[in-house]
């Protein structure tokens, strides 16, 4: 009872463009949400120097991107300054009149902030950029997005702060509650901004200790001059303010602004409400799981002791599970959702959850939790690199890092440390990205290094961590004589160590480490689920676990090629009376996937062509399609579900692979006895013969054709002979037209007769004795390659060269040449391959007594059977038989032309077989791997350099604007430049 998922194999490394989008926190998936997914707007980037209208900030050189409907900028160091603003917030664009050769634009936002960008690329590029900007702005205007801005920003608390800063900031009580305002102003201004449960149930922590009011003041000042919500410009001051902790009332909005979820909320108005409405009353496994956890999510917070909080939490989690049913709900999401709902409205929380699951914590909460496992592996490797002594000690005493660190990552420290501290880490996380988790994790280990070297087991590790987190509020240096040093809390120390000493951990580090370990993780998940699937089989039949594992491999490969329909969980019933076994969804494959599966395990279920063209010898394998395979599919579908589970396949194979002669004959008989009445009808006898012909279609020589032909002759002869009232004189012409004594769909041939007919033929006997069972082969499959992860430029080039289609083209090309030089040869690989020579075994003497025989000689017997068969065949409207039987006959008479080719090719076939087993790697593959490795190490070196540089300037707070003094002067001049007339 298990689900098998191939989803992990679909992972693709993000493209450069996607990485840019991720960097700017833009919604990565346009998909169903965006209005026009089909038309991809053009994108462009240009070198530019950014200055802010009031001249308060330095100018910064960087790149300006237009990615409609967004405009984005980042300074050259990619961390000092950046912004992402929707084009619809821009109200006016002017070309500035400045010195010759300077191309500058002034952008005015809806609230009057002036952004000046000097385009420093070549003139034509700048012109192109301008026209693109103009066009994109026009599109936004036409769509009416400009009008939406005003109403949207009303939902943002920052606007409230900025517009009435004197009121709010001064009158606000320390605890950040609204009460003061309401009391002092009898008619409170209409507050439409979104906020979280904290507004009603108070925010965690002591506002005085948190210095809420001074933080609010600082932010108000910053937001007034640097834009806010949709138009926030992130200068170094912004990051610093985030690092000291966001003020509670602004926190929710800043989270969505910094994480970019605000763009989702902005561009999908009403989506959340609609989603809930559409799915009202619907239940699923996810909603059931959610219910279980609602009361277990931050239960000590007052808001979650009331229906207000529980209801909001339920709606947000359910909405997300509806939006992303594949992910659904994972424990730990309840903690995140509960935490962010303290600071945000439901709608805000919904979109933030989306960004969390999709971009910031990719794959963390997926059913396989591969993202979690991957990042744990990455974290371990970073510990090994940055804190080797601790890593070695952990190895020595066999302590697993993840026992402690897994929940840190999975719930963003929220249930590991006191909430006030965890939220400050979350602040930094949204501002600076996922690397923060790694930095903080490393800092925790580093600070506790001494004590960690004393621990002996997992339990000791956890206890140490628990004690450390419980005392984060204590002084880090209680013994120090310096009161300022004494005042530094352990938490402050933690953040300092995180961002100072581990600033070497960058986004690129994380990305490249993830890339390094991804396939390892995927393989371990896959082998884990394989083990689980094999273990969970109800019965292995006569297979060993290893053999079942091979069946699983074949199934898995087939599923990768033809993914089955998504596993559907059975709808929950009203009562829990359902059979326990049915409760869990189980992966089942359809016919198409089954064909691929069978082609892996059964030699006759694939068409293998050995192609020789003078240049190469290869085996082209195709999946065979035949009614026989379909028949097998339904034969094995015992539960009549129209789909097969892993168990069905194992049981099905068990039913044929261990059979002896008699069992095989019976098995084959039953397979064709559709109504299971113990008799084959005449139609079924024909179908059965067709099955024979299908299985034998590539056998060398005509022995098998002859055998099948004799089989049919005998079957009908004996069948007729054993009928209660046998027909008389079937040899005469006239009899042909008379209807057969038994209708073609009536019981005709029973197992005993069938057995007798089969045993009358040496070839068929040996087929049933050994060949049939042996045609099912469980072989270890070559390790499947993971999707190519492009490693830099070289990797890109190789991956484009070494695609499947290119291989195909290469093959076609060599085939053509081979044909022109007359060396092209295609040989079908036989499925059974018993006869490698054209020897023809003799048919055995008939078992019928002479008295029972209708015809005395064998030759006439054949002709009789042919005449008997012919009408039935045409009635069944099968063309194969009509064609093949005469062929078989004629083959007997004539030396066979095509077969001689096959014969001469035999040694080559064997060689080809050997090659197939080894699966000769393409030279290209090898080269690519090497290139990848090289690339990685090269990256590494670069990183090291960067890391050193980063370390130097990270906390010096000297943010290099990347401009010379002269450049700065130009930029400053622009602040006062007049628009071009």
């Amino acid at each position, binding site marked *: 009872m298990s689900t098998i998922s191939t989803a992990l194999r679909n992972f693709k490394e993000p493209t450069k463009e996607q990485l840019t989008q991720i960097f700017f926190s833009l919604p990565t998936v346009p998909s169903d949400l965006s209005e026009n997914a089909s038309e991809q707007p053009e994108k462009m980037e240009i070198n530019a120097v950014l200055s802010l209208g009031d001249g308060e900030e330095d100018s910064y050189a960087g790149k300006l991107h237009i990615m409609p409907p967004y405009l984005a900028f980042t300074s050259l160091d990619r961390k000092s300054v950046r912004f992402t603003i929707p084009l619809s917030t821009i109200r006016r664009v002017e070309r500035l009149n400045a010195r010759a050769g300077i191309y500058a634009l002034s952008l005015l936002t809806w609230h009057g902030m002036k952004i000046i960008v000097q385009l420093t690329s070549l003139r034509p590029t700048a012109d192109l950029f301008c026209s693109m900007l103009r066009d994109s702005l026009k599109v936004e205007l036409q769509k009416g997005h400009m009008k939406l801005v005003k109403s949207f920003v009303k939902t943002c608390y920052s606007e409230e702060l900025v517009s009435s800063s004197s009121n709010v900031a001064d009158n606000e009580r320390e605890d950040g509650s609204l009460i003061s305002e309401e009391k002092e102003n009898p008619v409170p201004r209409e507050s439409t901004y979104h906020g979280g449960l904290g507004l009603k149930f108070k925010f965690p922590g002591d506002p005085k200790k948190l210095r809420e009011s001074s933080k609010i003041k600082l932010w108000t000042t910053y937001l007034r001059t640097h834009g806010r919500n949709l138009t926030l410009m992130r200068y170094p001051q912004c990051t610093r303010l985030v690092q000291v902790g966001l003020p509670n009332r602004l926190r929710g909005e800043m989270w969505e602004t910094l994480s970019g979820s605000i763009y989702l909320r902005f561009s999908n108005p009403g989506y959340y409400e609609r989603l809930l409405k559409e799915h009202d009353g619907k239940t699923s496994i996810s909603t059931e799981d959610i219910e279980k956890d609602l009361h277990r999510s931050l239960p000590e917070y007052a808001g979650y002791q009331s229906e207000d909080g529980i209801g909001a939490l339920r709606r947000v989690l359910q909405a997300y599970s509806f939006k992303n049913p594949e992910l659904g709900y994972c*424990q730990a999401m309840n*903690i995140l959702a509960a935490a962010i709902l303290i600071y945000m409205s439901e709608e805000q929380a919904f979109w933030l959850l989306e960004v969390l699951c999709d971009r910031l914590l990719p794959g963390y909460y997926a059913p396989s939790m591969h993202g979690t496992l991957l990042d744990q592996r990455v974290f371990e490797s970073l510990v090994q690199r940055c804190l080797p002594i601790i890593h070695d000690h952990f190895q020595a005493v066999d302590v697993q890092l993840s026992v402690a660190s897994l929940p840190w990552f999975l719930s963003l420290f929220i249930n590991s440390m006191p909430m006030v501290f965890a939220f400050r880490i979350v602040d930094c996380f949204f501002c600076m990205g996922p690397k923060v988790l790694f930095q903080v994790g490393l800092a925790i280990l580093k600070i506790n290094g001494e004590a960690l070297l004393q621990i002996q087991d997992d339990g*000791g590790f956890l206890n140490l961590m628990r004690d450390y987190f419980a005392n984060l509020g204590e002084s880090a240096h209680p013994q120090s004589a310096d009161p300022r040093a004494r005042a530094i809390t352990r938490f402050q120390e933690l953040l300092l160590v995180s961002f100072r000493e581990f600033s070497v951990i960058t986004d690129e580090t994380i990305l490249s480490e993830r890339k390094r370990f991804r396939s390892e993780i995927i393989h371990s998940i896959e082998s884990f689920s394989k083990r689980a699937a094999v273990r969970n089989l109800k019965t292995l039949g006569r297979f060993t676990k290893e053999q079942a594992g091979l069946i699983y491999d074949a199934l898995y490969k087939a599923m990768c090629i033809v993914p089955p329909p998504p596993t559907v969980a059975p709808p929950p019933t009203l009562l829990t009376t359902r059979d326990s076994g049915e409760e869990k969804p189980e992966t089942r494959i359809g016919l198409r996937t089954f064909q691929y599966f069978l082609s892996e395990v059964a030699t006759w279920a694939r068409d293998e062509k050995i192609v020789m063209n003078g240049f190469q010898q290869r085996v082209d394998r195709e999946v065979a399609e035949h009614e026989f395979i379909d028949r097998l599919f339904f034969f094995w579908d015992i539960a009549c579900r129209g789909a097969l589970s892993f168990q069905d396949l194992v049981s099905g194979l068990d039913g044929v692979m261990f059979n002896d002669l008699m069992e095989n004959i019976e098995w084959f008989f039953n397979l064709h006895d559709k109504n299971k009445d113990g008799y084959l009808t005449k139609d079924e006898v024909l179908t059965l013969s067709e099955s024979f012909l299908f299985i034998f279609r590539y056998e060398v020589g005509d022995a098998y054709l002859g055998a099948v032909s004799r089989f049919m002759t005998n079957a009908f002869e004996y069948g007729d002979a054993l009928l209660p009232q046998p027909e008389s004189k079937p040899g005469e012409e006239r009899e042909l037209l008379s209807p057969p004594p038994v209708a073609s769909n009536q019981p005709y041939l029973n197992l005993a007769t069938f057995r007798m007919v089969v045993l009358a033929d040496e070839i068929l006997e040996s087929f049933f004795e050994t060949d049939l069972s042996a045609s099912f082969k469980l072989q270890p499959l070559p390790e499947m390659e993971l999707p190519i992860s492009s490693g830099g430029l070289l990797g890109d080039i190789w991956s484009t060269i070494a695609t499947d289609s290119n291989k195909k083209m290469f093959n076609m090309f060599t085939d053509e040449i081979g044909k022109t030089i007359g060396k092209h040869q295609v040989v079908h690989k036989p499925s059974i391959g018993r006869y490698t020579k054209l020897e023809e075994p003799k048919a055995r003497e008939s078992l019928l007594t002479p008295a029972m025989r209708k015809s005395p000689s064998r030759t006439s017997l054949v002709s009789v059977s042919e005449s008997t068969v012919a009408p039935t065949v045409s009635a069944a409207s099968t063309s194969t038989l009509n064609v093949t039987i005469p062929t078989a006959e004629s083959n007997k008479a004539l030396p066979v032309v095509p077969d001689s080719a096959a014969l001469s090719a035999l040694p080559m076939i064997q060689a080809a077989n050997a090659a197939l087993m080894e699966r000769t790697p393409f030279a290209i593959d090898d080269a690519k791997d090497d290139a990848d490795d090289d690339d990685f190490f090269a990256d590494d070196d670069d990183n090291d350099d960067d890391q050193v540089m980063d370390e130097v300037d990270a906390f010096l707070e000297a943010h290099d604007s990347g401009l010379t003094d002269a450049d700065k002067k130009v930029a400053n001049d622009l602040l006062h430049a007049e628009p071009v007339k």
Partner: protein
Amino acid sequence: MADAASGSTDKSVQVKLVLLGEAAVGKSSVVLRFVSNEFQPNKEPTIGAAFLTQKCRLEDRVLRYEIWDTAGQERFHSLAPMYYRNAQAAVVVYDVTKASSLEKAKSWVKELQRQANPNIVIALAGNKVDLVQSSGASSAGPASPESEDEADDATATPGETPGSSGTEPDSLRQVPKEEAQAYATEAGLLFFETSAKTGEGIVDIFTEIAKKIPLEHILAASRGASGRSGVGRASGTQQEAVNLQEDANKPKDACNC
């Protein structure tokens, strides 16, 4: 706890025990009942695994249980090996009112028997037995509405339990005791029906596991050899900490009969 970080200096014997089972069968509640003899309505959810310790006196020995309480949701399954590796004991919990939870328990047992420490002592615990006891027989009246709410919040699946107040309690039972008992015997497990809410059977699990842990046999053997003198006993206790570690590495068939 002074000895928290360094278990090896402790005189008591450390036993690593892992709790496994389907979501919401009451694993955490079983642990909480055992460790602090409480029943907490709103417990923090288990992410990955929770870690608790509890000392347990058995005759003249002190066992220190290191309990790993794992998350029950299906997708956390792949993390479980991290927690059950090197475990000397496991408690696999199911919910007597939910038949599917026994199936899941069986699959856990299978997994443990194949993947975990070969000496692992496994106990099967059918929890929430208070929900199926008739109110007269039960000492702790399960039908009182207040405690029922608690059960809801902490362990039971909402939507399943509400039926309990009106109907006859026994109809809630989906797993007959005999069936589970038979399975446990066949698979060589200790078996208990428990209630984390009333405390029924909880301590018994841990006591019986303590008795069945292989070092008991070693201790018994050493005791037999050295007679019943006080000195012998002391040395036996000394030895057992050492023996435990050896035992974890060496396959011993002493207990898995």
